[in-house]
């Protein structure tokens, strides 16, 4: 049984259909990267899985239980977490408060978990009381991921985690993603600049025009000349 199973999902924004029957499986403990051009439906799939868009057709299961069309706060309770590409932090709240919002559904803030997050992102420790709105793009991305990890989800979905980051931050973020995965969390990543992401992925999928057109292991996709030419910017 897959951790996340997406079957024949069609979805979109109002009258504008974006996904035309997506099938996708994420196995427990794996990292999967979805690549593809703008408008292929990568982000739309994440929003649909997380209940922000209602699918018009298809079925989504998490750990064998259907989650199709559930509201976001109920999906969080099932053990999924999601970091959107933009506006993924609460700017007027401090780092610590941002992380606390990640465990709103719990009765109290698990202090041990808070320490684990600071261990994962040590540069946040000295800025616990700083407003996140004043921080750099890389630091914001760390806060956003930390917020999503507070409930120790079994699947973490990251929408373009390296977009608009300085190169040195990109390396740090991917290194952290591997660390999160080693601790037992499956990760679904959507990326446009996908080479880095495919290098750490167990599997990769290519989306085009609302359909999954190709799937293989991460290294195999990196080695595939056609995909390299079409989607990864040449050699």
């Amino acid at each position, binding site marked *: 049984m897959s951790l996340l199973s997406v079957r024949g999902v069609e979805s979109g924004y109002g009258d504008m259909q974006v996904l035309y029957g997506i099938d996708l499986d994420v196995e427990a403990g794996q990292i999967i990267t979805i690549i593809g051009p703008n408008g292929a439906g990568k982000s739309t799939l994440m929003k649909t899985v997380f209940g922000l868009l209602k699918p018009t057709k298809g079925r989504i299961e998490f750990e064998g239980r259907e989650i199709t069309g559930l509201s*976001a706060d109920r999906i*969080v309770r099932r053990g999924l977490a999601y970091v959107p590409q933009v*506006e993924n932090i609460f700017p007027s709240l401090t780092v610590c408060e941002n992380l606390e919002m990640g465990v709103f559904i719990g009765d109290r803030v698990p202090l041990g978990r808070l320490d684990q997050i600071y261990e994962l992102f040590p540069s946040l420790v000295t800025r616990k009381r700083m407003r996140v709105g004043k921080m750099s793009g890389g630091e914001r991305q760390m806060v956003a991921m930390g917020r999503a990890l507070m409930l120790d989800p079994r699947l973490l979905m990251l929408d373009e985690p390296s977009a608009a980051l300085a190169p040195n931050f990109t390396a740090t973020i991917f290194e952290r993603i591997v660390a999160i995965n080693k601790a037992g969390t499956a990760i679904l990543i959507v990326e446009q600049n996908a080479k880095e992401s495919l290098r750490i992925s167990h599997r990769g999928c290519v989306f085009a025009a609302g359909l999954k057109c190709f799937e293989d292991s991460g290294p195999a996709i990196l080695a595939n000349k056609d995909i390299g030419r079409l989607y990864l910017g040449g050699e």
Partner: protein
Amino acid sequence: MEVLARIPQLLVYGLVSGSILSLGGIGVSLTYSILGFSNFAHGDVMALGAYLALALLPLMSAAGISNHPLGSLSFGLDFVAALVLATMGTCAVGLVLDRVLFRRLRGAGRITLMIATVGVALGLRNVLQFFWGPQPRYYSAKIQLAAVIPGLGIRIKPDQVFIVSTAVGLAVLLHLFLRYTKIGKAMRATADNASLARISGINTERVIAWTWIIGSALAAVAGVLIGIENKFVTPELGWQMLLPIFAAVILGGFGNPYGAVVGGMAVGVSEEVSTAFISAAYKPAVAFVILILMLLARPTGLLGRRS
């Protein structure tokens, strides 16, 4: 020189009316930041609180609560009890309004929501007029003498001290609530980014319910405080406050409750101090002028975020 000598006294009056404006403004600001619309019914919710206290007052004495004046205040424990119950009643009305009307309009356009709040405003005002009539109704017939602060020559009534300290106390409580409680932090998070709040698992409907509770409670207290200051209430009292309240909220920065307090004090003081130079009949125009100047010079307000 004679004009300048009056200014310290007018500052005190400004502080009193500013306190009331601040309490009203906080609710408008919270509603805007979390629900995303301007609540034009807020003034009439204030009037509702004032009339509920008026209606409950005789029941309090009947229930055996002393009506002996507290210290040098013009009212007794019965009035304080009526104030508390009226506040709770107004909260209940706020929650019901959300449940039967505004919940159905979640995601509707701003214009639709604005018109809905105008409808609620007219509805509430006419209900008050239906039950209590258009004529002024008096909280108390007693006349209170102002005490003179020695040395400064400023006159202030004990009731006015009560008004200012109630407003300051409630603003501090609200600050502690927003800063340190879980639901308070969730309110700030939802105001920042409602969709991320949902993704984080925050129950935004609970946040919205608290927004109505806090906004309605502070409105009810503000309404009763107007009644204490003026000695009487009319069904129009909230509607008349709406313009200076919106001026205060815009001055402070729309959607920022701290800005509402700063803006409320600034508008209150400006209105009162203006009477040293121009006729008191122009007081409402002063709020208008502040509103227009602020919108021209800095539309995001004093404490607003520049985007």
